[in-house]
């Protein structure tokens, strides 16, 4: 045996072992963008031959619409069940579905719905107003323990019944006057009530099957539903298949025949499935964070970013010096260059905010949010000096709490640099696990802490309620009788225009007192094949698949030539004004 030769061989093999993976990774890195599909290749795909549609969805485990509370399972359920009203195609008022119309009393408290004639369950049994009464009571029944029951608390008597205070379900303000007339009495005028009716807890559930099969009723072999699609196959954590429901009242206008929902929680997997053409919409799992800027820069035709009804901000504890002085809070708010943060740091198309409410209520409410200055370092310095801290002198270091992950650190560091540079304020960052941060915020043991708020219902009020004195999510400890009074007035007001004036008033008070640091409103980015039409931008991010269709060959030709084809919203029911 040749000893030196052996040593040499060993050395070479070690070298190869180290270098090979390195080379491999370099190759991957350089090719990082190359592995993305190009707009060109997407536009040269053939139109699908059939009417099958596929997307990825995160672990849908549970299927009872009375209980579906979170994203998982939502996309499946919302295409299988349908309530009195349904989300529009894109931003627009709700569209009558199981109801054919509604009459609202002058005080905005009583809604009388007429059911669409001839509507049936997927097994042919007619749907009556009593079905709705039974289903809504079921959601509210304490024994059902529904997490989304709160959405029904707008109905008179619903809260007491759900809390177990009032055992008689008949006291809940929903009654069938006859098989096709449903009367609903509300606790307060709720101008967004028709929007609420589109949500899952308001859909009817089939009484006979629920009573017969118990918890097993949503299984494909038992389920009976009333939406545009029926559940044909369901394999938890694997896949589900939906088929067009031939008994759906508007089946003639439903284009898709079969929908495949592939289960994954992994963003990369969902992304790859889309890239290789297994799915037409990448799904509800979100895109891998590092792909979003790449896709944006590549200008991919199928990459879309929609605004969301979600707001990112920092809560400021208003009872802690020096933040008990509104001038200090305003100075900090004005010292952060959010445009640059969104454009160059986050790069997700985030919408810079100066207040709590995203500006997405123009179409539905005729309401445009208060826009005020977001960045003015001069003014910020002046305010700080006025408060007695010229150039930040005399200010103790400020502690910023945020939770680990999701790029929160990047944002916190950006704010830290801005405050240091523009105001001379020293900021210490402290990150903690999510549950711990939540506890700290709830206990009020902080000066500035990361928070966010997503709409409970599509109305500016959901963002403004947060800052009410006794709101649970009012981490700032902000207490303003003036503000509480305006919020109470908004709740009472049946007239939409006067209500908008009150909303504006509330926004102005918030902008003046500033118990929080507005940062930006969330967006969400997704991929959808360019030949898919009818998947339109919706502020609540709801896209019923009954509106989705594939482009005709002529349309596809136009899209290939760079035209964007959007389907207009349907004529829906405008939010009733009650007193109007």
């Amino acid at each position, binding site marked *: *045996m040749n000893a030196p030769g052996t040593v040499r*061989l*060993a050395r070479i*093999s*070690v070298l*190869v*072992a180290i270098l*090979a*993976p390195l080379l*491999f990774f370099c190759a991957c890195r350089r090719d990082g963008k190359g*592995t993305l599909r190009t707009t060109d290749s997407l536009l040269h795909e053939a139109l699908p031959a059939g009417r099958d549609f596929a997307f990825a969805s995160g*672990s849908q*485990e*549970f299927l*009872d619409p009375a209980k579906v509370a979170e994203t998982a399972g939502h996309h499946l359920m919302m295409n299988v069940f349908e309530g009195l009203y349904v989300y529009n195609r894109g931003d627009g008022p709700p569209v009558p579905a199981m109801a054919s119309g509604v009459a609202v009393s002058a005080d905005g408290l009583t809604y009388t719905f007429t059911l669409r004639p001839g509507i049936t369950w997927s097994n042919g049994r007619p749907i009556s107003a009593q079905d709705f009464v039974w289903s809504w009571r079921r959601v509210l029944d*304490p*024994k059902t*323990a*529904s*997490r989304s*029951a*709160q959405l029904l608390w707008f109905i008179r008597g619903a*809260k*007491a019944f*759900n*809390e*177990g*205070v009032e055992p008689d379900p008949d006291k809940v303000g929903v009654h069938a006057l006859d098989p096709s007339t449903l009367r609903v009495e509300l606790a307060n005028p709720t101008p967004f009530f028709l929007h609420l009716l589109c949500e899952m807890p308001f859909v009817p559930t089939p009484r006979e099957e629920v009573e017969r099969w118990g*918890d*097993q009723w*949503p299984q494909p072999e038992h389920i009976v539903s009333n939406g545009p699609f029926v559940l044909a196959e369901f*394999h*938890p*954590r*694997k*896949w589900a298949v939906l088929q067009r429901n031939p008994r759906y009242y508007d089946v003639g206008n439903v284009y898709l025949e079969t929908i495949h929902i*592939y*289960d*994954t*929680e*992994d963003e*990369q*997997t969902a992304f*790859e*499935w889309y*890239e*290789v053409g*297994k799915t037409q919409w990448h799904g509800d799992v979100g895109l891998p964070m590092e792909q979003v800027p790449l896709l944006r820069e590549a200008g991919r035709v199928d990459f879309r970013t929609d605004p969301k009804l979600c707001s990112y901000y920092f809560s400021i504890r208003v009872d802690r010096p020096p933040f008990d002085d509104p001038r200090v809070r305003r100075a900090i708010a004005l010292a952060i260059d959010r445009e640059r943060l969104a454009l160059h740091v986050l790069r997700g198309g985030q919408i810079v905010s100066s207040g709590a409410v995203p500006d997405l209520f123009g179409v539905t409410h005729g309401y445009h949010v208060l826009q005020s200055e977001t960045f003015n370092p001069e003014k910020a310095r002046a305010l700080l000096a006025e408060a007695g801290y010229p150039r930040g002198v005399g200010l103790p270091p400020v502690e910023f709490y945020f939770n680990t992950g999701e790029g929160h650190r990047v944002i916190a560091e950006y704010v830290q640099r801005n405050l240091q540079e523009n105001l001379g304020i020293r900021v210490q960052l402290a990150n903690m*696990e999510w*549950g*711990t941060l*939540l*506890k700290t915020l*709830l206990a009020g043991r902080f000066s500035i802490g990361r928070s*966010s*708020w*997503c709409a*409970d219902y599509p109305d500016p009020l959901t963002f403004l309620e947060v800052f009410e004195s006794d709101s*649970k*999510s009012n981490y700032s400890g902000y207490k303003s009788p003036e503000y509480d009074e305006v919020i109470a007035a908004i709740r009472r007001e049946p007239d939409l225009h006067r209500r908008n004036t009150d909303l504006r008033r509330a926004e102005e008070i918030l902008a003046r007192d500033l118990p929080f640091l507005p940062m930006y409103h969330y967006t969400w980015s997704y991929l959808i094949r360019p030949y898919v039409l009818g998947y339109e931008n919706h502020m609540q991010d709801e896209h019923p698949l009954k509106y989705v269709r594939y482009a005709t060959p002529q349309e596809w030709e136009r899209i290939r030539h760079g035209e964007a084809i959007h389907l207009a919203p349907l004529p829906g029911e405008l939010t009733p004004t009650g007193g109007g």
Partner: protein
Amino acid sequence: MAAVVLRRLLQGLLTLWVVMTLSFGLMRIAPGGPFDREKPLPPAVMANLGRTFGLAANVPSPVSGTLLRFAGKVRGHVRAGELLAVLRAKNGSEVKVLADRDLTLVQNVGEAGRALRVGEPLCVRETSLWEQYVASLKSYARLDLGVTYASEGSTSVLHNLMQSFPISLELGLYALIVALILGVSAGLLAGLKRNTWIDYVSMTTALGAVSLSSIVLGPLLVLVFGVWLRWLPWGGWEPFSFRWAHMQVKILPVVTLALVYAAWFARLARAGVLEVIHQDFIRTARAKGLSEFAVVTRHALRGALLPVVSFLGPALAGIVTGSVVVERIFSVPGIGEYFVTAAVNRDYPMVMGTVILYSTLLIVANVGVDIAYAALDPRIRREAA
């Protein structure tokens, strides 16, 4: 013999109880509960959920009357003897309701003016850890693993385990077979052709595979065979069958999981061969004029396999339980997912279910081995007697 079996089984049961108790304790020490969200749920909804899953119980009203006021706390800890609420009884007197124990309030039911009868819920409290522990032990004694929180109570833990465990088992067994074939042949070759390029290449690859681990290997294989070459699909799982349509999606996860273990097997097999190859009986076999092939297959292989076989037990356990990462990468709906998500979501019954399943498997395997030893080895039998 029967005494040995009985004793080992009892010991197994004891171990299982210890593991269960520890897991129960650890789960509850972790901060946060199963229904904590960024937006806190209203107390009434929390109370409804809590009662449904045995995490909350009613505090009944001791008298009939009208509620005047609550002590003020909406949520939080109340010590034994502290005031909960004030009622006006039927006879007009004021009754102060005190807490009969330390408790954590979930909900004060209703508002002032509410009329109550004896026994109707006045408040809702969290059940104590002890109550929960006793309740779960009771249900486990009835072989009832409970329902999962993630499904809002509509799916039983057992159902989830029965759905997912066979998949993990299938993945693990394939991976084990592939690992054995790959690893043993590579190790055998390397051992026989010691210090040749065959040896270096296979051992370097083995070293690489062990160091890379499946978290790197998986995405690499997907990139090469799935994205670039487009040879194989990945992501998801198909039912058990040997049809190509069902097998192809399983290839990448199986190979990813197998490579790491193949590397271990290769190193063990190589060591085994090296130990055997210079022994006298091999020289004798060669001296008898046996062909090299016969020497290797009849004699060297057995020696090489010994360390591999003794590693098979731990490897099987590791491969079946350790596929968490691979299952995650390839969206395989196996049991691994529950290890992670159930724990993160504080889905207590699901976590306990997985823990119990795996401890039972490991304990049964160990007890089985012990019993087998006892049957095989008279000395152990005598010891036990």
